């Protein structure tokens, strides 16, 4: 048969550490940029949905529909506008992240006990003070959970960016396929991608715990 094509190869890693690192940097950069853009879009939309409460369920079900768009389709649809740049991938993934973040934020804010908000208002807090000091901190666990899910999901979706040449580890994976099924390249890039996702998941869980000390100490 052909020459050896092992799935796990330490020599592959050694020889190609530079390529792996630069793919990792691109992967991380696209993840961070997409999440940042997603958050920036989510904040005003959340506040808007809260202000016009009757619109919230429509917004949620509408965004649910948008979430079903295949990543391949969305990235391709944006390509004519942003070209073969990482912006195409970033904007697409930011939209997916936005949908998850919005859902988490609205659900979280809905779960804030009504009596706490009433007490706050009765004591003389303005709407803005209530949102900042009461509603947002209490919605934080759900919001952070949404942030975590969105981040891990984004890390996976970056791979599809290989379609336009900006897939981070995904570019290596697709490259491995085209280079005569280069097993080591494909598998190593996959492991690296999963590792990145798990690391971010772990880090965000720790953040959740750190930011919500009151959630642990129930009587």
């Amino acid at each position, binding site marked *: 048969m*052909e*020459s050896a*094509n092992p799935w796990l190869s330490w020599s592959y890693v050694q*020889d*190609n550490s530079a390529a792996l690192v630069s793919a990792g940097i691109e992967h991380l950069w696209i993840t961070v940029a997409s999440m940042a853009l997603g958050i920036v879009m989510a904040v005003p939309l959340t506040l808007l949905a809260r202000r016009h409460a*009757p619109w919230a*369920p*429509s*917004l*949620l*079900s*509408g965004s*649910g*529909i*948008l979430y*079903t*768009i*295949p*990543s*391949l*389709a*969305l990235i*391709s*649809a*944006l*390509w*004519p*506008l*942003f*070209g*073969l*740049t990482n912006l195409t991938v970033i904007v697409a993934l930011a*939209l997916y992240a936005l949908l998850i973040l919005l859902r988490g934020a609205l659900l979280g804010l809905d779960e804030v006990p009504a009596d706490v908000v009433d007490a706050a208002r009765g004591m003389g807090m303005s709407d803005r003070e209530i949102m900042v000091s009461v509603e947002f901190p209490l919605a934080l666990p759900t919001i952070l959970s949404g942030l975590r*899910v969105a981040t*891990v999901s984004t890390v*996976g*979706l970056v*791979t*599809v960016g290989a*379609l*336009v*040449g900006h897939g981070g*580890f*995904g570019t290596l*994976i*697709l490259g*491995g*396929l*085209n*280079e*005569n*099924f*280069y*097993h080591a390249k*494909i598998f190593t890039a*996959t492991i690296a*991608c*999963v590792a990145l*996702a798990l690391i971010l*998941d772990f880090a965000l869980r720790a953040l959740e715990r750190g930011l919500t000390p009151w959630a642990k100490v129930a009587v």
Partner: protein
Amino acid sequence: MIGQLFAWFTDPANWTGPNGIPTRLAQHLVMSGLAMVIAIVIAVPLGMWLGHSGRKPGLVLNLGSIGRAVPTFAVLVILASWDPVGVGDLAAILALALFAIPPILVSAYDGIRAADPDVVDAARGMGFTGRQILRQVEVPLSVTYLASGIRTSTVQVVATASLAALVGGGGLGRYVVDGFATQDAVLVIAGALLTAGLAVVTDLVLGRAQVLATLPALRVRKSSQALGIGFGLVAVFALMVAPSALASMRGSSSGASVDGPIVIAAYSFGESKVMAQLYAQALQAQGIDTQVRELSSREVVEPALEAGDVGLVPEYLGTVTEFLNKKVNGTSAAAVASGDVEATSQELSKLAGPLGITVFTPSPAADQNAFAVTLAFAKEHGFKTVSDLSVYSHQNPLLLGGPPECPTRPFCQPGLVSVYGMKLSSFVPLDAGGPLTKQSLAQGKTDVGLVFSSDGGLGVQGLVVLDDDKHLQTADNLVPLISSSIATPQVRKILNAVSAALTTDLLVSLNKQVDIDRKDPAVVARAFLVAHGLI
């Protein structure tokens, strides 16, 4: 863009045949369906059993997060690269099934666990048998949860099945992948609309089904859903179409800088990459800064070369000449490329010059398009030439495999049909003489495939090239095309020296090192340049 899309969708040609919408839709649904069946058969009993026995709640909980952390795309490629599975729909079906198992398992588990222990206890106390409890309490609740899990999974599977096309599978994603290969924006957007549309419709239909399967007591009435759904559908359509509409209004944008390193384009197969590296490193050694970029096809590269976004591309003499010929003189222009290297080169310069492209001296090394079959097949029927194969095809129409643009390339499908009179049953879009095409041949999924004569791995895979006796293929010597603005005498001297040092045999050995031995093209190129005293 909207007009072009409308034209595409109303063109009856797009609704018939193996690349028509109904066929692709059917493939897509079949793939998704099989994946779901496999996933359900595995996940539902397993999840229910785990739920009933109450074991390993931690595992089930973490299954969800682990499942999310592994990208489906990676699993797809791994399966496609694994011999027992190979490229094509099977890899997609298995990958999708794997991807669908965790959510279904978790919902089956939750469904069984949802039967309130107090209720079960009371039922038992009243004299219900275990089976009665199962039937009247646990199962109805489970169905509710399962309906939710299966609905979500199915929609995700239908959406992700679009990725199958990246590994040579079918389905609606084919339009997107093929469109990218030929840089056909209309095809890409049409594909995007179709895949998105199918996913959305699936979600709505299953949503309705899920409501019906949910216990009435647990149904959530959301009257404002209709408005949200309407808004969502409009948004989906807008999102798919608006960016390209915006882009066409704005005019094409170019991102590359004029100054800075010379961008050398390489196509995504080994030979092109090693050629690009040869030129790049030779220039770099003389103090000229270069940057190699992988791009998908000639339709992308050539305009970029004209615009100056790409500075240099290692091309194939005959093929690129005809490409420019058709572009400049129209698709029905008479061919100007031939087997004569000198003559063809002159024709190329005549065409390229006005476009701002300079042509340097072609190399003796040539990489012709060639048609290959398996060695066994050739031996069995005594095929030596393409004509031999064509005769055979009259009684036995053949499956042709090649790059997605093959049906439009005169030296590919149209040529086989018109020059050789070959009968083809259908065309399978794969890659340009790359691993997908060769593997497909080797596995018997296609009968004849487009490969490259300088491919270092043909023998290893049991494939043999058939002689091009009617000279369908023109002289495809390696020749660097360069943007006129940077075609200085120094650059000319350096590149011509590299070209001159190459022969077809040397090229074959370079290709073997890259494709079979899996060496880094940059390393292989460097070794060659050093060995031949070019750096």
